[in-house]
């Protein structure tokens, strides 16, 4: 899935893994902050739980899962 680190032993955080984590950071920074959070965090509820609550914890969990997968797929 992922190419091996192109400069092994040189800069450990380099290559695709690092780029992916930066991408994930930017995505999370956008999702965690007001404009998108306010837009998607609408009223209503999912299975009795407020939609905003589900949404925030949902994307939070998704970001954590992606970080774990990115680390494993390295």
């Amino acid at each position, binding site marked *: 899935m992922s190419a091996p680190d192109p400069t092994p032993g*040189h*800069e*450990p*955080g*380099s290559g695709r*893994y*690092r780029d992916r*984590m*930066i991408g*994930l*950071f930017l995505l*999370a*920074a956008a999702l*965690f*902050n*007001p*404009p998108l*959070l*306010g*837009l998607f*965090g609408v*009223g209503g*509820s999912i*299975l*009795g*739980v*407020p939609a*905003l*609550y589900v949404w*925030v*914890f949902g994307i*939070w*969990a998704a*970001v*954590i*899962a992606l*970080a*774990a997968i990115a*680390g494993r797929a390295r």
Partner: protein
Amino acid sequence: MQTGLDWAAVLIAALVYLSALFAIAHWADRREAAGRSVIASPTVFALSLGVYCTTWTFYGSVGRAATLGIGFLPVYLGPTLLMLLAPLLLRKILRIAKAQRITSIADFLASRYGHSPLLGGLVALTATLGVTPYIALQLKAVAVSFDALTGGGLGTTAGPFLDQGFLIAAVMALFAIVFGARQIDAAEHHPGMVAAIALESLVKLVAFLAVGIFVVWGLHGGLDSLFAAAAARPDLARLMGSEAALGHAASGGGPWGAWVATTILSAAAMLCLPRQFQVMVIESTDERHLDRAIWLFPLYLLLINLFVLPVTLSGLLTFGGGLDPDLFVVALPLNGGAGWLALLAFLGGLSAAAGMIVVETVALSTMLCNDLVMPILLRTRPRALARSADLAPLLLAVRRIAIVAILLFGYGYFRLAGSAYALVSIGLISFAAVAQFAPALIGGLYWRGATRRGAIGGVTAGALVWAYTLLLPSFARSGWLPSGFITEGPWGIAALRPYALFGLEGWDSLAHALFWTALANIGAYVGLSLFDRQGAAERVQAAAFVDAFHPVSDGVTPTPTVQSDWRSAASVGDLTRVVARFLGPQRAGRAFDGADPDEPAGPERLRLAERLLAGAIGGASARVALASSVSAGAVEAAELLRMLDETSDVIAHSRELERKTAELERATDALRAANERLTELDRLKDDFLSTVTHELRTPLTSIRALSEILHDDPGLDSGQRQEFLAVIIKESERLTRLINQVLDMAKIEAGALDWRIETIDAGQALTEAVAATEALFRERGIALSVDMPERLPPVRGDVDRVIQVVVNLLSNAAKFTPPGGRTRLVARLGDGVLRVAVIDSGPGVPARDRDLVFDRFRQSGDALTGKPAGTGLGLAIAKRIVEHLGGRIGVEDAPAGPFAESGTGASFWFTLPLAVSPSGQGTGEPPVITRKID
């Protein structure tokens, strides 16, 4: 509170729990000392980062959620974002911290900007002022939750010096001193403390989850019914939407700003809080542990926050406005009749407080000692310090006093501020204080041109603006300053209102402060750096930090003019003394082992001393200490520092040159070795050929001479003829044997021999070998006796080859034992091996020849008597076979006894591995057939 728990029981439970933490810490320290670290695990590392979650999380999140809804979350989303950048940012910091032996964040910044004591002291001071009130908040949280749990049993009745706050401060001081300042260690690791922190993180997570589950399913029958009940109340329904936290999307400013500002500040705090830097960077044992922490720590944050909103809503439903929401975590289980769960919640809160207090005080005390007190002492009292042979006790005393002082300050602030706004709001205010280090920290990692003056200017400007826009207003809101300070500005100057500086109105106070501090901090940092020149020390350190992953710098010009000054600067003895003073004589002795004390130290040794000292007392102090070490009058201290900088500069440059030279030398050496080996092999081959031809010629000569006589003299009598023919046959046999052995030898050497290694009956092999050589001994009149146990266990080997070895040894003995002598074959069991010895009564082998007799064509007889008595290959073949079978072979003097009268005698022995394990069970291994092809 309907029913409080007995305060004495709660107190005892708390003390038992804290004692358990002491025990865990002690155990972890012992394990570390024994080399079996418990903290060298990525999971423990990630858990120790959980020290981020203080009582401000454990109790305070619920309180924030009660007014902000999901507005409590940015404090945890910020660190999540930061962890996503760990591969980029944290890895680099960890790498640098290890290489530079960093002891704190103050030390890190000071080291980056040319080991600046001023910057280090500034950072240490800012951190202490910004964070110590936060310790007061922890003490308060413990005290208040204790009262909530016991119904106010102790705190109000037992006098001012026996309240829970003082008790917890005292216990924490003891813990910090025992596990955080017990010895001066060059690596500044505290495994016991980290183990206790990791456990506390686990306890507070479990406690909060347990409370959450109890509240949701025990008190309200599930999430949906809880949320439904809350939705029926308009004031609570507000908390479940985005408005409380974010305001209307259209309104700009407002809560929006607070959300973003809190996210940024908590990300910065995750990096810059002294306690986070301590557990994440200083205590880190392996930078690969980050890989798991990247997702495990955010997961921890998510889980500990999962039930915050349900607990908040439940608390507001149950208690209305009658109780401080900060206490819901303890009050709800207590009110629900689950006293034990309330106690668990209290212990969770206690864990949160204890972890924060211990790590923060240890980090701050290290910082204060290394970056504030020691540089001042070294500068103001150099002579007093120089007289002392061992400064470790002084360092420890400074740290311990700092720990006690910080906790006393925290306790005093708690008593003084009580429930004032200045204390309640200190969480984010102290985040904002330490965030002032972030620009210089992150900039220093990537911007080579950032200078010391820029960093000092940035931190100073940021800290001043922070004090003006956050700290002073919080004092004003606590009533310690006139309230007009906020509403009208100092002296009535509206433009200076701290929450609306220069007319920037309508902003959340935190976002407002973040904007102005960032502007002042980054502005001063960048501006001053751009118009400043770096000194040599700064250039070197800037390169070391920015190029942490590429250790060789390329932007520095070497200044090779310093070498001559070194002769008078410092001697090895000076360095040993100064290192011994801080790290003890043993470490110093090891570092400069074998060097003449009067020898000039030279740049490399000076660097070594600097690194050693930096690990104990921080980079800035290390340099001052070094400067003070030089014999008075030899060279000015400032001059020495200048030389140290320039030397570092030269060293950085010459290192690559050295590396390349060393590589070249290694390649040359390898080539030379290969060439020598080839020459040697060539010579051996020549020797071998000449010896073989010589050995072949001897029997051939006699065969030829005798057959010529037979051919030329037909009148030879039949007796004579018969005798000659017998000699010819014997010599031909010898020739055949020789050729066979040469071929065997060649095969073994080429690795082309077929081996059939299996479990064999050693007794039978020995018997066969004896039978094959019996005739030889009888012919020469030598008595051959066999001495072996009746039943020998099986051995691993190739039966034909084993027989060959024994035959070779026996024929060797037959050759060298004089007629009438005796030879004995002895087999004994050794430790997992069978030991076979052939003992003769011959002349023996002199000690100097014992290694040589197993070489090809090296016969003892050759050298001693000048008369070749064998082919010279038998022993060499035997040696190669035995070694291939995994045994050993050798020769020693025959044991004294029956043969003592006829010279010393020789005992040729070899061993073979037993096929049976020591327990007596057969391995039943299948035969292994190998054919080695070279």
